[in-house]
């Protein structure tokens, strides 16, 4: 009870893992891992292919159960924390490619509620704001399937920003982009952290383009997590 009260009223900012054991199929991602790390600025979650970076992001959102231990994000367990977290999966949606990009963002703006959309104008304004934030306004009314990989990613980012999260979890946002596209995306992410004051956790193998931009690196290896600032 006392623990609940502490979590409720004085949330620890950042990511806390306590004795976490997490598996993905037959692979052990974390074994009794503990860690406390702030999530301000940009945090790079790195590790070799198949180490379980995506699995850890999904566990932070409560999409995958832990075998043991607990994960707290800003003092909250995953099912509560995800109300304050925006998520962009590795493969940005490939559903309904003929629908205009703006429809995908509008669906995310009020998609957590039951019933029909009633405040259409407010929803339209909010989705326009999100698309402007991620630099996607110019192609918002084109079908998603006709957009390039980088453009689609901007739409995915606008979706992730719906609900005004204070943390973004981005799974491989630089994958499948050329050098120029990666640099544009990194500039955009840095801009978002500065303008919105939100934290970003991203997984990536592209350490070169991220050097000097990320605030810290969390290395996932051998069932444990290690922080480098």
């Amino acid at each position, binding site marked *: 009870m006392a623990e609940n009260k502490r979590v409720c009223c004085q949330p620890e900012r950042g990511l806390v893992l306590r004795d976490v054991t997490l598996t993905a199929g037959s692979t052990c991602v974390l074994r009794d891992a503990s860690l406390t790390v702030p999530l301000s600025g940009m945090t790079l979650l790195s590790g070799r292919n198949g180490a379980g970076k995506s699995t850890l992001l999904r566990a932070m959102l409560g999409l995958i159960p832990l075998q043991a231990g607990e994960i707290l994000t800003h003092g909250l367990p995953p099912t509560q924390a995800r109300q304050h977290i925006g998520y962009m999966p590795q493969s940005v949606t490939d*559903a*309904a490619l003929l629908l205009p990009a703006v429809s995908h963002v509008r669906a995310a703006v009020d*998609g*957590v509620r039951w019933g*029909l*959309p009633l405040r259409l104008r407010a929803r339209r304004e909010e989705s326009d704001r999100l698309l402007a934030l991620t630099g996607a306004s110019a192609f918002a009314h084109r079908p998603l399937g006709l957009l390039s990989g980088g453009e689609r990613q901007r739409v995915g980012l606008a979706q992730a920003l719906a609900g005004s999260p204070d943390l973004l979890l981005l799974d491989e946002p630089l994958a499948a982009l050329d050098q120029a596209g990666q640099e544009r995306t990194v500039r955009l992410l840095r801009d978002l952290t500065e303008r919105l004051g939100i934290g970003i956790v991203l997984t990536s193998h592209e350490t070169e383009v991220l050097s000097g931009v990320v605030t810290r690196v969390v290395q996932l290896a051998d069932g444990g997590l290690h922080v480098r600032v």
Partner: protein
Amino acid sequence: MFEFDFMRHAFVGAAVVSVLAGTVGWFLMLRRQAFAAHALSHIGFSGAAGAVWLGFPPLSGMVAFSLMAGFVIGAEREGERGVPAQRDSTIGLVLAASLGLGAWFLHMSNRGSSLATTLLFGDVLGIDVPTLEALCGVAVLCLGLLAFLGRRLLFASLAPEVARARGVPARLVSVVFMAVAALACAACAEVAGALLAFSLMIGPAATTLKLGLGPLAGIAVSVGLALGLSWGGLMLSWVTDAPVPFWIGLGAALSYALADLWRRFRSP
């Protein structure tokens, strides 16, 4: 042609079913579940055959069988990326099992070929008032449930993983939606027959999506097209004596082809 009761009933029944098919079909196509729509209407055929054997109205059997199949298909566990990993296998096997049962029901009911023809090709001109009332009841229930699912269904259809990450109960939404789709397929089968029921679900929705319209405009156009197809089919059938499902099926394919041409013409 409106001086006859059976024609008036047919037009009203076709209108009710078109509103339902246009709306549910749009979501089915959005979720890439055309095979589910195809399977559910065929599964309804087996249920109808069973109902006839047991002495119940065919619509009740269609609804019961389609609904059960809808729950089985919708409840499938989702894979890593939010989409059921073995969706087509599950649908295929549920379809195979129910068609087997349907063949057995037809055999037992001893009314083989004439009953099968009616169920497979529909009997829109034979709709009576109780059937019309039942169709209206199904339509109101389905549209009410769709309105309730609304925003969460759309979000979970467009970005399943992101929706789940934000707490949308995607599996519950999927199960309820498949139940709605099952009811809608049963209702469509009553008008267009089990073989062509999904032409009303898929044709207008696929055409609309091809036009690149957003959800609200898309559903409205899809309903309008379904209405055009079913009423057009009735009128052409009156004039030419060809079966209504023939015109509906042909019209669905034609409208999609025209939308495709328009798309190609407009694309750079």
